[in-house]
């Protein structure tokens, strides 16, 4: 029963409560960094790192943090992990860090993370929180990766910079522009609605 429960906490982040496609949270990075599949994946991994660690810490400290200052406390914890992630990327993956631009530091204000801290981590044990935030993080990464791959394939004919089609490929430029992000996201949300409604 306990295991089943954890499994559910983990799985809901993918479909039933997917943060991007169902809850429609964290749309700013989802739209901005999905120009290539690699950018999307890196962003997703950074969010998983920040989300999981800050949720678990919030959950461990939940009884210690006074209710009145909880948001301030959550924000400090989140900002700490975001800065660590940002410094790590700058030191070890400078190229990627450059192409993600300001969106890594901006994870601080990503509402998925504060949302999970407030709605879940501050009320549940750290084991449950760990599975919940890992699931949410993976759901976010999955949504970004699909959108990033879609945009990269349509706009450059490549995925992870590996060319898929021959030289005859006519790129669909709009997909790499902001408008393409909205189009792609719209289609994905529509498909998600179909899936959720059928259930």
């Amino acid at each position, binding site marked *: 029963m306990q295991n089943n429960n954890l499994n559910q906490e983990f799985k809901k982040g993918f479909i039933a409560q997917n943060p991007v496609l169902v809850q429609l949270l964290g749309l700013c990075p989802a739209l901005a960094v999905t*120009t290539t599949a690699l950018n999307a994946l890196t962003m997703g991994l950074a969010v998983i790192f920040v989300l999981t660690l800050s949720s678990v810490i919030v959950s461990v*400290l939940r009884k*210690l*943090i*006074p209710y*009145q*200052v909880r948001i*301030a*406390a959550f924000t*400090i*914890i989140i*900002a*700490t992990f975001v*800065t*660590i992630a940002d*410094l*790590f990327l*700058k*030191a*070890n993956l*400078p190229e990627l860090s*450059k192409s993600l*631009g300001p969106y890594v530091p901006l994870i601080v204000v990503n509402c998925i993370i504060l949302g999970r801290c407030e709605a879940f981590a501050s009320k549940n044990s750290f084991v449950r929180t760990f599975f919940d935030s890992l699931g949410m993080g993976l759901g976010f990464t999955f949504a970004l990766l699909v959108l990033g791959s879609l945009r990269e394939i349509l*706009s*450059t004919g490549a995925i992870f910079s590996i060319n898929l089609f021959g030289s005859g490929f006519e*790129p669909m*430029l709009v997909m*790499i*522009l902001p408008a393409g992000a909205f189009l792609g996201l719209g289609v994905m949300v529509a498909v998600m609605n179909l899936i959720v409604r059928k259930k």
Partner: protein
Amino acid sequence: MKVLAKMVLVLGLIAALSGFFLAYVNQKTYIRIKENQEKEIARAVFKLIPEGKDYKTSVIQGYRVYFVNDESKHFRGACILTSGSGYQGEIKILVGLSYNFKSIKGIEILENVETPGLGGEISRKSFSSQFERKSVSIPIKCVKGEKKNSNDIQAITGATISSDSVTRIVNRTLKKLVPLIKEYAKQ
């Protein structure tokens, strides 16, 4: 009163721990980050002046200028680090000059936030290589369509503003800095 004390204490403690961790991580990564930036400049400098072996950095009028020597310590050219505004944000460019400061060895776009797929193409060789061997004394002109004069470069289709911006930044930098660099090199 008790709640207030607890609020201050807990928040203060969390902030202090956070500061401690960040100081630690910053110390661990600081050198690597600095090295990465230096490495990127070095890579670009030797790409523009391939015969170079080492360089000396000087700051002239707030611009960083790299004087490049080859293996036998002969001066082979200089690179200027410059920047200016593009269509969406700052464009950072390294401009390479020949040993006599008469022509451009090439330019390298180090950073840009132009529209990917359109203005972002300025960092492609097909655009930036047009600056190679251009004369320093005549301002470079960015034209649409066919090039007519020797100092024309062709703008990227659909990215006239980005192309113009690069040209403008290069022209402005050359006009301002080449006389100063000549002075400096004499000394």
